[in-house]
Every structure is written in C-alpha cells, then in structure tokens.
C-alpha cells in the first residue's frame, strides 16, 4: 500500500516538474496573454477545433506577424472546459490567477456563465460567441455572436417577405434554438402568419422521424429547421426523404452548408435557404483557407474577428487597464475582417447582421438579395 502511494506521488511530482516548462509559467515581460476557454473534447470536439479554437489562435498568430500589440507579443492559452460549468469555473480561475490573462474568450453557454462571476470580481473582460443575454448584461462581458433573437427575427423576415401562409418550426433545445424560436414565433404571428406546427427534438437526438411525421401531417408551405450542427441537418433531411416529405420551401441556419451535411444528405440540400453570417470571401481566400486548408464558416469568422478586433483595439487603448481596453474595443471603428466591416458600436453586442443565402445544386452557395 505504501509503495503505491509512493509511486503515485512520484508520478505527480514528475508531471508537475515537466509542467514547469509550460510556456504559461515562464514569465515573459510585456506579453499579452489571451485565455481561450473552449471545447476540446466530446461530440463536437473536432468541429470546435476547426471553427473556433484554430481560427482564434490564427488571429493571435496574425496579430503577432503584424508586430503584436504595440510591439508586444500576444500569447494564446487554450484550455478545455469540456462544455461544463464546473470545469469552466476551474479554467477561469486558472487562466486569471496562474496565466494572468488580459481577456477570456469563452464558449459554450454553461462555461461562459460559470466564468462571468469570476471574471467580474477579477475585472477581466469576457468575450463570448455564445448567445446568452447574461453576457451582454454583465459590465465585463461582450457578445461576439449575434444574439439569438436576431436569429429568430432574420428567420421571420424571410417568411414574412415571401408571404408564406403556413409555417412549421422544427427546433432543438439548445438555449440558442429556444430563444430564436420564440422570437420567430412572436414576429411571425404578429404579421398574421399561421404557425401550423412546432416540434422540438432533444439535445444529441439522431432520430427525428416522430417530429417530422407530425409536421408532415400539418402540411406547411415553409419549414424552418433550427440546428447548430451540420450532422443534424444531414439526418433531418434524410429522414424527411424517408417520409416522402418535402415542403415547397425550407429555411435553416448556415450549418446546412457544413460539409458534413452534404456528405449525409447529398443533393437533398439543394435549394434550401439559410441565414448566415456574411463571411468575406476575399478574407477567406487570402487569410484563412491557405493556412487552414478549409473554408471558415460563420463560427470561424466570428471567432477570428472577436480576437482580432480586441487586439486591434488594445493597441489604441493606451493602457493595460482592462476597463479601458474593453471600452476601446466596444468603441473601435474601422475594423474590417472576416465578416467584413463591423464593430460593437458602443454596445456589448456585435452589430453583425444575418443575410439570406441558398444551397446551389451541385455544390456551393449563393447569396439571395
């Protein structure tokens, strides 16, 4: 028994000794450290790495290539929060106290909301691509993703403009889907359009046949399908085909353009409308694709821009005082990046708007004016 404990203690000691070589512990003068509390495990791990973690780190690399922030090197410290509140809290403390980060870029929602109280009392700004309104309500938070009700209103605008009479909504249970769905329903009902059926699928569901059967029976002329995952869209479309169900118009979120969807659903995706974050194709071709080997989607673009705009603003703040840096960021004008020209316009919420696009038969997408 004693021997086991001894070996265990030696193992821990060795790990910690190895760890002392970790860059975060090496004290470099004048460096600016950015904490990235994100998902690096679980079902979404690879997607998250592609379209959140790597774009954020790319923005840091690009800033350094341009000379850093007023000549100071920027270091990104990525920690896995497992999408959980408990781990998120531990990560927040670690980034703030041990790494001494200037800002925490954190998602998804459970991790953000666990991070907020800690960051608030430590006076560390938090930037998030979650959609929780609590982030923008906090004096230290900023939302780099359009809030969910803007999503819902974008859906509603499309439906109202095209004068559909019978819409149906297939929505998930994430906080994003729930809030967007409500905003959508309110706007559409106010315009006198009938929502003939709303069905909800559970988190991580892969079988939507029950929900789709009920929607099929309601015979909508436009179906809104809400999801944050390309694979989910793939399954939904296949199961719609399985039920011989294809409403005249389908409206979705931009994840329909994720390569995973076409891999699953093939040309079932053709002609489907979706709302998207306007990614600048020139930026994608020049900055992103050559180094990453794939295209940035809305999440990738927003992640890149959130970090890049923060760093650009930091250079103009004239101080390391986090409150001043945050104010500089919120009021920063003239940034043009992955989503084109945008800013916070003084509000702790990005002003980026959605636009409508459509899946082209045979591949690719086209913007719908």
């Amino acid at each position: 028994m004693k021997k086991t404990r001894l070996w265990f203690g030696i193992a821990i000691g060795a790990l910690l000794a190895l760890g002392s070589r970790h860059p975060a512990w090496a004290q470099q003068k004048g460096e600016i450290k950015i904490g990235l509390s994100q998902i690096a495990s679980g079902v979404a791990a690879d997607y998250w790495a592609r379209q959140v973690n790597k774009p954020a780190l790319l923005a840091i690399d690009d800033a350094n290539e341009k000379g850093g922030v007023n000549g100071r090197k920027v270091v990104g410290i990525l920690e896995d929060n497992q999408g959980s509140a408990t781990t998120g809290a531990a990560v927040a403390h670690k980034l703030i106290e041990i790494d001494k980060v200037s800002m925490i870029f954190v998602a998804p929602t459970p991790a953000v909301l666990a991070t907020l109280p800690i960051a608030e009392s430590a006076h560390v700004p938090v930037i998030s691509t979650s959609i929780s309104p609590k982030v923008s309500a906090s004096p230290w938070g900023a939302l780099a993703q359009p809030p969910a009700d803007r999503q819902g209103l974008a859906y509603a605008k499309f439906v109202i403009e095209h004068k559909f009479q019978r819409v149906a909504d297939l929505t998930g249970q994430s906080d994003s889907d729930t809030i967007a769905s409500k905003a959508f329903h309110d706007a559409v009902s106010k315009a006198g359009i009938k929502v003939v059926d709303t069905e909800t699928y559970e988190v991580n569901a892969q079988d939507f046949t029950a929900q789709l059967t009920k929607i099929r029976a309601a015979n909508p002329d436009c179906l809104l399908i809400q999801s944050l995952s390309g694979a989910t869209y793939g399954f939904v479309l296949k199961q719609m085909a399985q039920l011989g169900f294809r409403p005249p118009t389908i409206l979705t979120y931009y994840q329909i353009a994720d390569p995973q969807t076409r891999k699953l659903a093939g040309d079932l995706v053709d002609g489907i409308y979706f709302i998207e974050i306007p990614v600048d194709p020139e930026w994608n071709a020049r900055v992103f694709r050559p180094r990453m080997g794939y295209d940035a989607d809305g999440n990738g673009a927003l992640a890149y821009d959130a970090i890049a705009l923060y760093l650009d603003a930091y250079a103009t703040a004239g101080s390391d005082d986090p409150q001043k840096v945050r104010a500089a960021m919120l009021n920063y004008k003239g940034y043009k990046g992955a989503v084109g020209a945008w800013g916070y316009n003084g509000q702790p919420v990005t002003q980026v708007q959605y636009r409508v696009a459509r899946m082209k038969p045979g591949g690719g997408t086209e913007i719908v004016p």
Partner: protein
Amino acid sequence: MGYLVTLLTIICIYTMLTAAMDLILGYAGLFSFVHAALCGIGAYSAAFVMLKLGWGLVPATLAAFAVTAAVAQATAAVTVRLDEHYFILGTFCVANVILSIFENWTDVTNGTSGLYGIPVASLFGWTIAPGLPFLGFCAVLTAAVLFVKWRLVSAPLGITLQATREDEIVAWVLGNNVRQVRTVIFVIGATITALAGVLLACFLRYLDPTSFDFSFTILIWAALFVGGSVGTLGTIVGPAILVLFPEALRFVGLSGPHVANVQQALYGLLLILLMMFRPQGFFGHHSVR
C-alpha cells in the same frame, strides 16, 4: 489562490457525492444511475427557492432535502424490489425523466438557458463569501457528512446493509427487511447528494441541465472505485485524484484536440485495470465483486 481553492471546493462537493455513492453502492450494493440527477434536483430546488422565491439558504436546503428525498423514495419504491440489473435500468429511466424535466420545465428551471445569478450563500445574515470562506463552509459540511456516514455504517444499519449486499436471500431469511433497509439508505444517500447539489448551486451560482447528465454519475462511480468503496479515506482520495489529475495535465504542456480523449480513454482503461488488479481501489475495504 482562487484556483486551488476552487479545486478544493470541487473536491469537497465530489467527496460528499462519493460518500453518498459509497452508502448506496459500496455498502448496499445498489448500482444507481440516478445519482447526478438527484444532485440536480437538490441544486435546482435550492436555486429556485433562493432565486425565484428570494428566500435564504436554510429554507432552500430544506426544500432541496424534501424534494430530493421524495423523488428518491418514489424511485426506490419502484426499483429496489427489482433484480440488481433492473435496478440499474430503473434508475437509468428515472434519470432520463428527471433530465427531461430539467430541460423542459422552463418555468422552474429555465431549461437550457440555465439559472443564472444564484445569490451568494448567506447564513443567518452572514454572507459566506466566494473563495476561502465558502471552501471552509463546504469543508465543514463535508466533514459532517463523513461523520454521519461513519456513525451510520458502524450502527446495525451498516452491518445489515453489507449483509444484504453479499447475499440478500440469507439476509432476508435472517429476518431483515431487505427492501426497507435499502430504501432507507437510498433516501439517505439521496439527501446527501441534495446537500452537494445545494453547495454546487451556491458555488457556481449558475445551473444548467447538462451539469447533471450520465457522465457526471459515471465520474462519481469512477471516484468511488479509484478511492475504494466501504471506507472514509477512499471517498476523499478518489475525487481528489479525479479532479487534480486532469488539472495537473494542463501544466504539462500537452496540446492538440485529442488530449481530452486520451485522458478519458485512460479513465476507461483505469476502470478495467482496477477491477482486474485492485478491485478495492486505493483505500477501500471491499472489493467490488
């Protein structure tokens, strides 16, 4: 400082959960899949009372106890009389129902948007500040729980439980009301998890349904098996290892998208190796057999 305090607080809360699991699984031999969900019921009940009713910590804790004990009683009534493997499935079903309620009963739980802004714990007018004071508070409560557990298992109840775990027919023949004894311990264990849930709510000051899913229950199982069941030291060591080890890994400079997968694969392997070579865990007195 806050980082270490945070980790120690999490270890305290997990120790409480592991101690409860030790009573249910270690002593009584019941493989409960509903552990995390019961913790969630305690957490949400307390949060509801504090956030939406505006009451204090004591009524919140009492509410948590009451609701969780009631749910545990109902669960036990259905599942305890079933065969060992049905107990697993029965508690699996109950856990799914509870998680569905967490996600969908939005008037109480706010669904997937979560309950944010749970007030800082305060007892009789004294605020228990986040950080060291809260850790002290958790540590005291955890010690109390471990004490209660120790008294419980030294009493006839504990011995009866182990007898029922080893051979329920013999225990029954000898005059023990096996069903009742198991129900009692399940409800007691559930009440302890409710207390852990209250502390979790006050600690994170935010609750969401994904915090109480099956991976959390399996984590507590792992903590119990690593630390060792039927024992007190094990219920502290297990959580400590499972919390500190991944945090220590952060400092080793490993990177890449699959580090967490390697870590979880190692946990799986650890469970297999433990059953193979050290089924009583590091400090346990009973081999899970």
